[in-house]
């Protein structure tokens, strides 16, 4: 009876784990941690949201500074993230939205167009540099190319401000100068990061598509004119 009662309880037999006294027991009884996951080092789940956002923002800001002063550092490559490129792309697309058009179909670049150009252009350049034997990874390259759009975005902001004030020959010259300078800056900054990962005799092959890519974006910025 007692046995049937015991057997009816689930896992009845397992509750009776006893160690015989004549068998010496040694070793340490510690529960293993299990397959170690990388973010078990510190759990970011319990921290306040503000901390998470501030940390990410600080990382993004740090990378912006690295683009402004492009010297050989691995911050952009080692801790890549795509927040910065997304932010820049969205800003640029919003600013370029609604370029002057008297006919809807052939107006200025639309939001989706800018988005597609930036992201697919970056993907193609990345594939190209990988096919040419580059050692940089896919997302690292996307990160670098996206962050280096920053000078062009700044140029776009400047152009828009200047266009609000006036328009004419002098303004066009100013815009041309600003856009050309920022285009050169972008190309130089991105090649400072990308060219290092290539075999030395093929740097030119990697730099050329980057040059084309920023040229197209610079051209879109230069030919933007606000709708009246």
């Amino acid at each position, binding site marked *: 009876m007692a046995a049937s009662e015991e057997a009816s309880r689930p896992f009845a037999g397992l509750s009776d784990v006893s160690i015989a006294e004549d068998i010496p027991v040694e070793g340490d009884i510690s529960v293993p941690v*299990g397959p170690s996951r990388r973010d078990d080092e510190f759990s970011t789940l319990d921290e306040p949201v503000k901390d998470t956002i501030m940390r990410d923002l600080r990382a993004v800001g740090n990378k912006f500074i690295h683009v402004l002063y492009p010297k050989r550092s691995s911050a952009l490559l080692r801790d890549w993230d795509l927040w910065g490129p997304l932010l820049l792309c969205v800003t640029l697309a919003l600013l370029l939205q609604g*370029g*002057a058009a008297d*006919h809807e179909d052939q107006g200025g670049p639309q939001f989706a167009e800018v988005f597609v150009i930036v992201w697919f252009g970056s993907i193609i350049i990345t594939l*190209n540099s990988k*096919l040419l034997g580059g050692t940089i990874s896919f997302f690292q390259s996307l990160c670098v190319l996206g962050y280096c759009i920053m000078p062009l975005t700044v140029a776009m902001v400047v152009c828009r401000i200047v266009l609000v004030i006036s328009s004419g020959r002098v303004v066009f010259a100013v815009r041309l100068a600003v856009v050309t300078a920022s285009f050169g800056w972008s190309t130089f900054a991105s090649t400072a990061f990308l060219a290092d990962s290539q075999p030395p*005799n093929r740097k030119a092959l990697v730099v050329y*598509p980057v040059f084309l890519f920023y040229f197209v974006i610079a*051209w879109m910025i230069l*030919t933007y004119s606000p709708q009246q």
Partner: protein
Amino acid sequence: MSSGSGSRNTEPWGSFDDNLIQGGGSAVIDMENMDDTSGSSFEDMGEMHQRMKEEEEVAAEAAATEDDVADDGEFLGMKGLKGQLGRQVADEVWQAGKRQASKAFNLYANIDILRPYFDVEPVQVRNRLIESLIPVRMINFPQKIAGELYGPLMLVFTLVAILLHGMKTSGTVIVRTHTCTHTLFMFLCLLKCSLCVYLQREGTLMGTAIGTCFGYWLGVSAFIYFLAYLVNAQITMLQMLSLLGYGLFGPCIVLLVTYNIHFHFLFYGLWLLLGGLSTLRMVAALLSRTVGQTPRLLLCGTLGLLHMLFLLYLHFNYHTIVEGLLDSLEGHNMAPMQRVARDVPEVMLNATARNPGMLLSAY
């Protein structure tokens, strides 16, 4: 819950069996240093190598997780049993899903197949660009055509950039207007423009430019390759792509110059000179690889015609013509796409056909 050594089927309910991963593959053959770059055999080897590498990785991963999972099970005893089972199931699902995804990815998105076609040096690219404008007279022996995709791809993108530049000229463009009496060209352009207006209605500038350039490169290459296949010419698809891609170098230069300097006679001269030279080079290369008068005529005539007409099309269709300097300077407030139509009394066109109307009015 035993830690099985090589077998994956340790759970009583039968885990996800994958027939591909049997017997802990050890990649005996290292394909990485294969020198054989001839066509398909390299691709197959590359794929096999990828698959073996992937099997290795997955098997190693699976063994590692299995060991950890087994260790846990032994220590956690009664309480952990249900949780243990759940975790194992979840892990198995994850592993299976990951395996499927990486298999699909390696199968369809394996860019390593294209790696040998991008194996060039800058000097080689420069030489090939210059050679694309120099026709070679030897047509009795097959000419060597480089099978490379970097140069052609970059040229197509350059052409896209040049087209954008031509489409979106800022307002400071001066044009000498003059009358043109080439009615045949006018008619052809009208035809092309009406088609273009129809197609452009739903598109964007960038999309149109990319579509045109890539469509021409890929489409005409495929078409000529098909014709070559019909007449049994000795040329592969890769060589055709490469040939036509490098043949776009001449048109690139022509368009770059004539989008900035708007003299029509300059355009016609450059069209004949540079366009003609690059066409002749392609035609000579094809001639050297075809036998028989009729096939040669068919193939080379088609290619020559298409290439010359394409350059003509690009010039006349993507070119904005603006009248007057002063208007355009103040016209920074105007649209980047300047479609200023003069009123031409004999031609009355409505707004939807503004494109041809602009073109006709320019003459």
